[in-house]
């Protein structure tokens, strides 16, 4: 939590000095997108997404794609599909579908891990920590499926002089876990010459059903732990940073970092051995 406060304090300082350049809704090329034209790009470089799951490897990142298309009202943005219900100078309300990022820790080819090269990313490590745990160990190679699902709901943006506030509530659309997620996000852009810095602080709430589906233990996996660990709703806290340096019209240098403090309700799961997850990526991005 202290990370969040530190970020908010530091960004608030920047906010007062950088406000003038943030007034324009389309002030820099990362804020707006051309209607009716596909925006396709790929970033090549190196990064790692740490995996908080016990016995699962961290996920290396070598390439990150971006694909988006915005019509007059509909939009597709990196797997998210939405429809803008209403929009004004200072607000936007969208009906939106998105997907949970939790499954990505379990499966190599989850959408959140697309283009992550390395066959055993998100795969189980051979290192056993069995001896360190006095309680029955869970054989992670025999975990049941954690299926992919889409979430649908509503999101709203508020554009203020102190940055953008996003609030969203989404619910499982395919009865996979019947859970609900909510997000409160605050982000702030600071364009400085050829640089653009984006800071974000995020609160991610996941209902008990979501936590139980991904991090809960099923009786077939471990009768002991299925009784002992009882999932509850959880609130993750994240801070994000994206830095872009414009080299040419098509090429950018890209720096991305994210730190997520996982909620105690999730960390309590015997599937986890870390209470946080980090992601970083450094590379060159090309927009076609």
């Amino acid at each position, binding site marked *: 939590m202290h990370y969040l406060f530190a970020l908010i304090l530091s960004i608030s300082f920047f906010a007062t000095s950088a406000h003038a350049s943030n007034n324009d*809704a*389309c002030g820099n090329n*990362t*804020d*707006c*997108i*051309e*209607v*009716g*034209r596909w*925006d396709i*790009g790929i*970033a090549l470089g190196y*990064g790692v*997404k740490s995996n908080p799951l016990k016995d699962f490897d961290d996920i290396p*990142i070598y390439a*990150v794609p*971006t694909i*988006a298309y*915005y019509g007059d009202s509909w*939009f597709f*943005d*990196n*797997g*998210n599909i*939405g429809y803008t219900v209403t*929009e004004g100078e200072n607000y*936007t309300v*969208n009906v939106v579908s998105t997907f949970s*990022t939790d499954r*990505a820790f379990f499966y190599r080819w989850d*959408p*959140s891990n*697309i283009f992550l090269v390395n066959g055993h990313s998100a795969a189980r490590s051979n290192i056993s920590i069995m001896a360190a745990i006095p309680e029955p160990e869970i054989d992670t190679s025999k975990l049941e499926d954690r299926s992919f699902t889409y979430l649908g709901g509503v*999101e709203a*943006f508020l554009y203020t002089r102190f940055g953008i506030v996003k609030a969203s509530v989404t619910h499982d659309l395919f009865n996979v876990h019947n859970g609900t997620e909510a997000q409160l996000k605050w*982000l702030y852009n600071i364009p400085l010459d050829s640089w653009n810095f*984006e800071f*974000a602080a995020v609160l991610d709430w996941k209902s008990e059903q979501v936590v139980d589906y991904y991090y809960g233990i099923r009786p077939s996996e471990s009768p002991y732990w299925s009784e002992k660990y009882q999932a509850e709703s959880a609130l993750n806290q994240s801070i*994000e940073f*994206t830095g*872009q340096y414009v080299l040419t019209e098509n090429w950018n240098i*890209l720096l*991305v970092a*994210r730190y997520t403090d996982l909620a105690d309700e999730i960390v309590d799961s015997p599937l986890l051995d870390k209470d946080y997850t980090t*992601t970083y*990526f450094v590379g060159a*991005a090309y927009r076609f």
Partner: protein
Amino acid sequence: MLSIAKKSCLWFLFYSAFSGYAVAEELEPLTASLSLSPTICITSEDEETCNTEVVLTWELLQNRSICIMSDYKGLKKWCNNSPAVNSLAINISADQDIQFVMIDKDTHETLAGVKLKVTQASSPQVRRRYRNPWSLF
């Protein structure tokens, strides 16, 4: 001494006489015409400058020497010394409209005029993007 009312009346009559003369001039058949092709140059979205070749063509009912003048820096004044020549091709590079005027070389009388309109292609419509392109999902 004429009163103010009488002065005003005289000015009105004097002005009316000249106005009538001007109308009579406009009603005379045109003795020269000047045309331009193309008349509009649309610049691309990326470039603000129009780069193209335009052709000026003129017709004269009387044999006379003419000059073409413009407010384009590359063609301040060009004069035609041969009656057989009745067109002029010019490569232009401009970011604003260009006015061409044809004048009588000897009398400097304005015979005709034409304008090249330089206009930018409409800017693409943009809207807010709701996701960071590189948010790593």
